[in-house]
């Protein structure tokens, strides 16, 4: 899947490196020198120098802690290395949550001092902990069902099928990228996988797409190209056919019709995507880059 990919230079890092089989959800990625590379606060898995996946992939929030299984290696390395693979690295922004989390509780205590709601605050904490576990357990059913179906979708080649349908749109959205360039293929596969809710499969395609777009990025490589920004806005919009997580939460909370949100979610996510892509086109002239890729 990543054969013939662009080589990617990572900043100097001395991570553990060992010979192993790397595999992801679709099967073996290959046997090679697997390296775990730290980039800022994120960790990447490389197979023979090519970036294969990111560890600690959590694009859909819910999947925090779930790793693309590129990292599931038949490791011939000390256990410590395996530990390194399985450590969930925190994204920089995750650090902000530390402040928000503490502030919520601290403010609660201060407000309780004025309102005299101490007993209520205690009850709120205890009840919420119980609710959190109930909701999580209630999610097991639908997550199991949906992840199973999604595996079937992946094996049946539905990502590629959806990709063929999306090809005409990609020409419209990415006029700067030659239609037969490998970047287009990777972009389409990334969007198709995201639409099916296969965020594990989407991430490697997305990184590949960014690497390919980087080869077309004329001028300063540390500045994003127009095509890169447009691709990013497609991803942050998060177009998804079935919002499985929220359907699960609604049904765990006792909804009689949890799938009622499918149509409204689809409409709002499509509107968001169209606006975000349009904004990327409008704003690009106000954020000029010295040399734009052609």
């Amino acid at each position, binding site marked *: 899947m990543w054969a013939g990919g662009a080589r*990617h230079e990572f*900043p100097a890092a001395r991570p553990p490196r060992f010979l192993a089989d790397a595999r992801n959800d679709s099967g073996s990625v290959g046997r090679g020198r697997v390296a775990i590379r730290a980039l*800022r606060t994120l960790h990447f898995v490389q197979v023979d120098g090519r*970036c294969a996946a*990111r560890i600690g992939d959590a*694009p859909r*929030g819910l999947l925090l*802690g*779930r790793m693309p299984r590129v990292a599931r290696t038949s490791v011939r390395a000390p256990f410590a290395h395996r530990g390194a693979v399985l450590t969930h690295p925190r*994204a*920089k922004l995750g650090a902000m*949550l530390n402040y*928000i*989390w503490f502030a919520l509780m601290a403010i*609660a*205590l201060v407000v309780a001092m004025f309102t005299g*709601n101490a007993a209520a*605050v205690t009850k709120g904490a205890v*009840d*919420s*902990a119980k*609710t959190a*576990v109930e*909701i*999580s357990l209630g*999610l*097991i*059913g639908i997550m*199991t*069902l*949906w*992840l*199973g*179906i999604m*595996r*079937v979708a992946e094996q*049946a080649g539905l990502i590629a099928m959806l990709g063929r349908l999306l090809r005409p749109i990609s020409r419209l959205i990415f006029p700067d990228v030659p239609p037969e360039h490998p970047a287009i293929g990777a972009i389409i596969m990334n969007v198709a996988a995201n639409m099916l809710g296969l965020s594990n499969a989407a*991430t490697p395609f*997305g990184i590949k797409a*960014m690497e390919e*777009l*980087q080869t077309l990025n004329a001028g300063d490589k*540390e500045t*994003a190209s127009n095509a890169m920004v447009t691709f*990013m*806005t497609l*991803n*942050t*919009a*998060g177009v998804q056919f*079935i*919002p499985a997580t929220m359907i699960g939460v*609604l049904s765990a909370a006792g909804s009689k019709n*949890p799938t009622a949100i*499918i*149509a*409204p979610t689809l409409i*709002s996510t499509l*509107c968001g995507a169209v606006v975000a*892509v349009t904004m990327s086109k409008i704003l690009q002239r106000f954020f000029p880059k010295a040399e734009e890729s052609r």
Partner: protein
Amino acid sequence: MIRAALEAVSLWAFPVLLVGIPLVGMIRKVKVYDVFIEGAKEGFNVAVRIIPFLVGILVAIGMFRASGAMDLLTAGLRPLMQATGFPAELFPLAVLRPLSGSGSLALSTDIIKRYGADSMIGRMAATLYGSSETTFYVLAVYFGAVSVKRTRHALPAALIGDVVAAIVAVAVCAWMF
């Protein structure tokens, strides 16, 4: 008319995909049941793995709410929000959505529990959560992967998209339900 069509989409999308995806699999000679089981094994882990995240955030929000601070916040926001027509109860969720996936999942869960799974606010919260991505996280990951430091208009364009998605989510729910 349009509303009926959309309700039909909501009603049929799930069961049709549930049968349609394995159908494509059958045509493509995939061992659908075996593959299903293989993928389904992960569902339990995914659900169980979010427990600590959910407990941490829901407890903080629960305390915040019980102390009366949440009422103060929404009351403070209300005049500001009234002008726009955006529900004050959902404003914190709309702000948190692009910043934190686990945080906004917990906050929307809390709202759904609090207002009811079939209530207007609950459905709006679910739709709002599903209508976007954790924008800051996505940008950090993909631009980080190719060492791009100057992201130009990526953040403003993405955030404008998120704002529109949130507004549309609320508007469509208000119209449909």
